């Protein structure tokens, strides 16, 4: 099993390389020299030169040991992301933002999974009935409403109008309070798509031959669902769930922006607005690493649940 893990991790290296290459192309080649922008309108050529030196933008692109290309990779491996536009260390910004983001996304994550999987089981039970059709319709309708509207509506109605929740983040509020409404909105808007997926998985399994055999043995629908279908359905469910974990760190871009929660998502939005390539670059790199690592973890979980998979 260790050889399998090592082999899989080795395979992630070309991917990470690819991501670094992509970010280099995007932010350095296509993005161009932004030292002028950083310097501002009335900057003197000296200031611009200083800035260029500081950010390493005066180095040759490719052809030297100290080229931007090499440095890009070197910095990535040492997690040295330099400074953002506002001169703060990118690493510090990220450290600050992780806490609030996780406070938001982790409850959302668990909420959506628990509710969706349970509801999916219930729906598999009443398959074909009116409730099933209604549930599907609600899911599709939920998926068709733009995410933005969910957030706006929730914020306006539940916080502003009804005053049930604080409208905005403020540093003196306890975490649970300012996170409550965004989490609620996140769960409700995310239910549609997830429930639909889990429902499809359950129903597909219900149509399998082994379910027919189980019924032929005289098992009740409840037994068949909870024992036979669930374990098989776990395989695609786990894949989807584990792969969603890396996204938890990114925070929810839009929710944070709307509610002013100072997490990584908010950081991203600010960076987009101010064209802060350094921050965007760092975030992209980190997300990619998390993603490939969790891909490997997914494979391992897969192998633990499905006896057909061998780690050869």
């Amino acid at each position: 099993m260790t050889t399998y893990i090592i082999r899989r991790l080795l395979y992630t290296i070309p991917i990470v390389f690819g991501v670094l290459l992509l970010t280099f192309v995007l932010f350095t080649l296509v993005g161009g020299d932004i030292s002028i922008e950083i310097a501002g309108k009335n900057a003197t050529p000296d200031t611009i030169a200083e800035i260029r030196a500081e950010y390493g933008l005066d180095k040759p692109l490719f052809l030297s040991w100290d080229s931007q290309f090499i440095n890009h990779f070197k910095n990535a491996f040492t997690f040295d992301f330099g400074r953002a536009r506002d001169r703060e260390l990118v690493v510090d910004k990220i450290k600050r933002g992780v806490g609030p983001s996780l406070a938001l996304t982790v409850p959302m994550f668990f909420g959506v999974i628990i509710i969706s999987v349970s509801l999916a089981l219930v729906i598999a039970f009443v398959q074909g009935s009116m409730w099933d059709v209604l549930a599907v319709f609600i899911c599709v309708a939920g998926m068709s409403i733009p995410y933005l509207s969910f957030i706006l509506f929730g914020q306006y109605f539940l916080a502003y109008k009804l005053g049930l929740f604080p409208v905005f983040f403020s540093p003196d509020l306890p975490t649970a309070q300012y996170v409550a409404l965004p989490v609620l909105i996140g769960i409700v808007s995310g239910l549609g798509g997830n429930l639909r997926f889990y429902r499809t998985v359950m129903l597909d399994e219900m149509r399998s031959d082994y379910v027919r055999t189980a019924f032929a043995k005289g098992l009740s629908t409840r037994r068949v669902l909870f024992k036979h279908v669930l374990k098989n359905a776990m395989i695609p469910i786990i894949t989807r769930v584990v792969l969603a974990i890396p996204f938890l760190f990114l925070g929810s871009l839009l929710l944070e922006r709307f509610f002013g929660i100072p997490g990584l998502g908010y950081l991203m939005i600010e960076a987009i607005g101010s064209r802060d390539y350094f921050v965007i670059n760092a975030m992209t790199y980190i997300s990619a690493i998390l993603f490939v690592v969790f891909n490997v973890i997914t494979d391992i979980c897969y192998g633990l649940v499905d006896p057909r998979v061998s780690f050869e």
Partner: protein
Amino acid sequence: MVGNGTLLSVENVSTHFFSEEGVTRAVQDVSFSIQKGKTFALVGESGCGKSVTALSIMRLVPAPGGKIVGGQIVFEGENLSALSEKQMRDVRGNKIAMIFQEPMTSLNPVYTVGNQIVEAIRLHQKKSTGRAWADAAEMLRKVGIADPDRRVREYPHQMSGGMRQRVMIAMAVSCEPTLLIADEPTTALDVTIQAQILDLLDELQKQNGMSILLITHDLGVVAERADDVAVMYASRIAEVADSRPLFAEPLHPYTQGLLKSLPRLGLSDKRLRTIPGTVPEPLHFPGGCKFHPRCPIGFDDKRCQTIEPELREVRPGRRVGCWYAPGYETKEEFKEYESKYGEHKSVPAEC
């Protein structure tokens, strides 16, 4: 045909599927009975409704859309159609068991073989887990799997097709059912394994005295193993008889065509014979007798085109559904035909 030795009696059962495309009449007005301790074969081409008939007996017709719309099924004197779902669950796997065609997909891949057999045992019999596992291993030994104590903890994908089918059989007979329904049990297996599996079924039948409903499209298997036969075509029974007489003298043109198309050594025909045309789609069944478009006598016969012949007992122990089967037509019907359509077709002498 319903006597004291009757275990299962299927009476005028019809099963339809309702979908947005329309109604699929998969099984129409099917009747036959299975005697205790005997093997009854239900033969027909793919799509004729034999599997749906079997599922109807178990009341396992696929739920969205499928429904038994008529008739009744009497098992050991009890009307299965009148049982509640809970009572039916006590029958399934316990008194009537079923094995399916694809052993690979019919077993749950994420549980061990033993786990699945134990599940069946503990569901219907009050046994401790330890006893149940011992019984499971014993069942594996009974169905001819070597080293059963090791095998019992293996997963389905670790076994060959033939072994998996043996596991299915072990699971099915673990509670000693009186009726075993085998839906094309050997179709997905190699020819050499087929014979072994069928021998195993014979063996178990002798030991337990159970009846077998064997569903197949292979006439060779029917000839060797079945006591009684029913031939199905396009949702209906064409002919029912004891095995030997059916093969010696088939009365329905479809059966005749099937037997004629079996390749045989020694015959001087250069071509393989076939029944022309193809099996009709359930949504577009022809009017009248379902077989008439492909029948040498019925394709241009006005009566065959319009009126469906019901099953009638033309001789003791033989039922057919064909206007031109010897002994089928009553004198009134003969006269009615002549007055309506003119000259009656002659029933040819045997070949």
